[in-house]
């Protein structure tokens, strides 16, 4: 089929911004960390790290409800001491084993449609850059913005680089990105599953709730935002 010559944004001034966890894929950063925990260099290391992770899940859940910033501080502290090269090398395996199978069936179609519409494709994720990179490559997006871990002497400190990519900061990061790349946010799209990404959705002209949680679904209904399901 000939579907050429229909790009609505041939000037490249509109973009589609995607959250990842729960939006494009069904896993989240805890799954990624759990996978790293299971894959420690030694069997005992794997068992200890996995057990610690499992025991911490209730704390993560509570922290996430209270504040995404608090959650990040607690959660990424568990990466402390991990060697940088190991995290990066295993990220490819993590993608193949965990992330790729959990990409929602319709994610690829949505991104293809946005590409056909001439939109610049940008992932804006609270995940870590080395875990998001293979996904971004696989989906063929133009850019990704993700959290970075700080390293000292090749080992993770457990601290995130600033600014954290979460909540209202996502909207600011998108504004900065758009200013730098000449993107008109009023003509752009944003996709997320979570009410915590309300700022990211509110900053664009075409917000879309994807597999939304209850609060986001309520907001989307109130504002007549489109709701789609990629699952």
């Amino acid at each position, binding site marked *: *089929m*000939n*579907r050429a010559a*229909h*790009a*609505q944004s041939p000037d490249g001034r509109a973009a*589609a911004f995607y959250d990842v966890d729960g939006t494009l894929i069904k896993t989240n950063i805890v799954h990624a960390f759990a996978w790293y925990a299971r894959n420690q260099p030694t069997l005992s290391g794997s068992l200890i790290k996995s057990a610690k992770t499992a025991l911490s899940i209730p704390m993560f859940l509570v922290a996430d409800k209270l504040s995404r910033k608090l959650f990040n501080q607690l959660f990424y502290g568990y990466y402390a001491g991990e060697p940088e090269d190991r995290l990066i090398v295993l990220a490819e395996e993590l993608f193949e084993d965990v992330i790729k199978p959990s990409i929602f069936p*319709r994610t690829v*179609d*949505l991104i*293809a*449609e*946005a590409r*056909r*519409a*001439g*939109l610049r494709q940008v992932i804006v994720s609270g995940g870590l850059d080395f875990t998001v990179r293979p996904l971004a490559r696989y989906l063929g997006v133009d850019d990704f913005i993700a959290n970075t871990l700080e390293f000292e002497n090749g080992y993770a400190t457990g601290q995130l680089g600033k600014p954290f990519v979460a909540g209202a900061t996502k909207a600011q990061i998108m504004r900065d990105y758009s200013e730098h790349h000449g993107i008109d946010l009023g003509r752009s*799209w944003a*996709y997320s599953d979570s009410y915590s990404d309300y700022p990211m959705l509110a900053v664009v002209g*075409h917000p*879309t709730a994807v597999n939304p949680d209850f609060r986001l679904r309520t907001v989307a*209904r109130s504002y*007549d935002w*489109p*709701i*789609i*399901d*990629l699952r």
Partner: protein
Amino acid sequence: MRAIRPRARGAADESVVMIDNDSAPRIMFYGEDFLCEDLPVGTRVIYPRKPLAGLPNPRAAIRYALHHPEDSEPLHALLTPGMKVTIAVDDISLPLPPMKRPDVRELILDIVLQMLADHGVDDIHIIIATSLHRRMHDWEIRRMVGDKVFDAFAPERLYNHDACDPDGMVTLGETAHGEVVETNRRAAESDLVIYVNINLVPMDGGHKSVGVGLCGYQSLKAHHTPKAIVHSDSFMDPKRSELAHSVHRIGRVCDEHMKVFHIETALNNRMFEGPMSFLMKNEDDFTEMDRLKFEAIQWTLKRTPRALRREVFMRVPAAYELIAVHAGKTEPVHEKILAKCYEQYAIPVEGQCDILISGIPYISPYNVNSKALNPLLVQVMALGYFFHMYRHKPLVKKGGVMIVTHPCSDQFDPVHHPSYIEFFNRLLPETRDAYTLEKKYQDEFAYNPSYVEMYRRGNAYHGAHPFYMWYWGQAGREHLGKVIVVGSDNSTVPKLLGWERAETLAEAISMGRSHMGRSAQITMLHHPPILMTDVR
């Protein structure tokens, strides 16, 4: 408002009735409710014809049509074992409201599928020819094609057309006028395409079936334009419709690439029966029982929430009957069906009017089983469908007034009509000019990735669909001097549509007269059921 009192008068079966001093008030639809209003003496009320008698044995008539086709070999002679066949079927936008089971499409499919099986044809797909309409729900498809066909074919071999599937569409070429001809790949690659149609209004059927039902956005945008609508006088009169001419050219290119066997049907207008049958009558001929039924229904409706009223109306199927079925080559088949449609719908009318009154019902082709007849659809019913229900010349004079009755609530179905919401709230405040909207925004909506996803996997109309609804009203907007809505429950919707408001019909008539003069000729179109006027 006065109560309707039966009068001692012989049964009137004429379709054009003049209001006199002792005429009963007239009933008109007001969304999911009715108004019962006195009309000024001298008002002309145009009623639909009585339903034509249904064919006594529809199954036999269908078989006869398949065995005695127009300009084609009989269907059985076109079949060879192992061939690839696609059956395309009209979607739920027809008939309105959905007809009692068995739907005529079920009857036809039963017979055609049996014939295919008898001839060793088993590579069969059934595609609901939705074009850019919403995907039908499984339960809607089941109701339409019947349990037997649904259980045997769905979902792998019975599914909705997907105009946005990059792999499922194919471009066949262009017409001499440069219109892109894009169609469903499965149909294009089949040895035989059988189209099962229902003709409810004369703009349906013919080359529109394959040429539009199975097309993509590129094809549709060639003729779904404000210009084509304005040059369609009217689009219910295919010979004088630019829209129909373009579709005709596209259909001919389809015929060059595909072997199409067309089965067209015409239904009578028996829309209401049982407790609602009084709606088919002239109010002057109401019996005491009719009057009581109407008052009981009104009493009930007034005490029922709108959502429930909608549900009840939507769940009352129409008692349509098959009045004609023809098969074979698209064009001769369509000629015969059109003639039957006009026999049922067309009412000769002498002279145009200055003020046209029309009640807007709860339903349109685009909101079957939806949560609302949203403001754009109210607009399309008024200025698209009811304005265009004429041949020769519009029922209302150039610069005349159209009065419609509807609450015009600011309600949309976010699942079926998401792009309508943005169109209405974002674009109409900027401009009502259809040409500007087409040029500036249509592609943006058509390629909006969210709307594409909602069309392909949800149950949403295509992102470009609200534009077509707006274009449908363009000829009416250009022709009329004023549109007045009676009983709007808000001021925003009429304002955005460019309409004026009146609290009562009397006030609207007074406003219309102040625009057209005290001696303005007033005409009321008494529908549904559907009727058309042959204006001389």
